[in-house]
C-alpha cells in the first residue's frame, strides 16, 4: 500500500515537470590530493544510482558526496578514515568492494580455491596417463590434415609432408 502511494506520488512529481538542478561540484584540489579524491570516489557507491560509483555518477547527490570526500581529504583524513566515515553513515553497502573480513573471505578466496582444486584434479588426471613416445594418432579429418601440414611447413616433420600433400590433392 505504502509502495503504491509512493509510486503514485513519484509519477505525479514527474508530471509537475520539476528537475533537480544540475549544480557543479566544488573545485578540484591540487593534483596529488585530487587523485586520491577520484580514487576514493571510484570505491564508494552512489546511493541513489544502480551500482555506479560516486565518481562516475551524474546524479547531484553523488556530486555532493564527492564534495564531501574532497572536504575530508583536504582536512587531512586518511583513505581509511574517509571510507569509515561513509560506512558509518550509509552502511557497508556503500563500499563497492567488500571488506576482507568474516563471510566476505568467501568472495575473495572462493574463486582461487576453485582454480587450485581444479588444477590439482587436472594434473592428477594427466599424470595417471604418462607421456608415451608414440606419434600422434592418424589423420582424422580435414582440420587435422591442415594442422599437420602447417607443422610440416615449419620444416620439422618431413615424414608427414607426403601424406599432407596427397591429402591436399583432394
Amino acid at each position, binding site marked *: 500500500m505504502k509502495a503504491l502511494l509512493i509510486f503514485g*506520488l513519484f509519477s505525479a512529481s514527474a508530471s509537475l515537470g*520539476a528537475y533537480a538542478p544540475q549544480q557543479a561540484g566544488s573545485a578540484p584540489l591540487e593534483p596529488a590530493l585530487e587523485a586520491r579524491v577520484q580514487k576514493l570516489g571510484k570505491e564508494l557507491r552512489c*546511493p541513489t544510482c544502480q551500482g555506479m560509483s560516486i565518481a562516475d555518477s551524474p546524479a547531484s*547527490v553523488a556530486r555532493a558526496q564527492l564534495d564531501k570526500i574532497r572536504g575530508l581529504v583536504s582536512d587531512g583524513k586518511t583513505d581509511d578514515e574517509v571510507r569509515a566515515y561513509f*560506512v558509518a*553513515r550509509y552502511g557497508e*553497502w556503500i563500499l563497492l568492494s567488500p571488506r576482507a573480513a568474516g563471510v566476505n573471505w568467501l568472495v575473495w578466496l572462493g574463486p582461487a580455491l576453485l582454480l587450485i582444486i581444479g588444477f590439482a584434479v587436472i594434473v592428477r588426471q594427466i599424470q595417471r596417463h604418462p607421456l608415451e613416445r608414440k606419434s600422434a594418432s592418424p589423420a582424422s579429418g580435414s582440420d587435422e590434415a591442415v594442422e599437420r601440414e602447417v607443422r610440416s611447413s615449419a620444416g620439422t616433420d618431413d615424414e608427414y609432408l607426403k601424406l599432407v600433400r596427397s591429402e591436399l590433392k583432394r
Partner: protein
Amino acid sequence: MKWKVIVALAVSLAGAASLVFVLYKGFGQDPHKVPFMLLDQPAPTFTLKTLGTGEVVSLAELRGTPVVLNFWATWCAPCRMEHPTLDWAFRQYGNQVKFLGAVFEDTEENARAYIARAGSPYPQLIDPRSQMAVDYGVAGVPETYFIDAAGVIRDKVAFPMDRATFAAHIKALLGPRASAELGK
C-alpha cells in the same frame, strides 16, 4: 571409484540447493533500501543559516529539546505533498519539539520562491552543497530524522508521512510520559 561419483553428486546438489536458497531469501528484501546506520547515535552537529531571516541555527544549542529535522527539495513532489502535514505537525507539537527543515540538492532561489508561495512556519536551513545531508547519511528526499532531547537520533523515516504516522513518530520521540500528557 563410485565414491567419486557420490562426492560429485553431493557437491553439485549442495551447490544447487544453496543457490536456490540464497535466491529465495532475496525475495521480500528491497535491494534499493539504504540501511539506517545512525540509529541511537549522536546526531551530527551543524551550524547553518536559515532561509528567511539568515539567523544561525546550531544543533548543539538545541540540546534539551527534541528536534524533528526534515530534508526536502522543491523538485521533489512527495516533499511538496508532505508540506501541509509538516505544517500541521508544527501547529500540534511545535511547543514541545523544535521543527527544522533542510533544503537538499537545490538552489537557494528555488527554495526561496517555493517558501514565498507555500509559506513555512518553522526555520528552513540552507545546506550548501548538501554537506550536512551527507553527514546524516541522506540518500534521497523526503527524509525526516527524529532527534531526542539528548541529541541522539532515535528514528528516521524515508518516505512522505501522513498525519497519523507523523503523530505516532513524534509521540514515540517524546516518550511515554509526554504522550500521556498530550492525550490523543
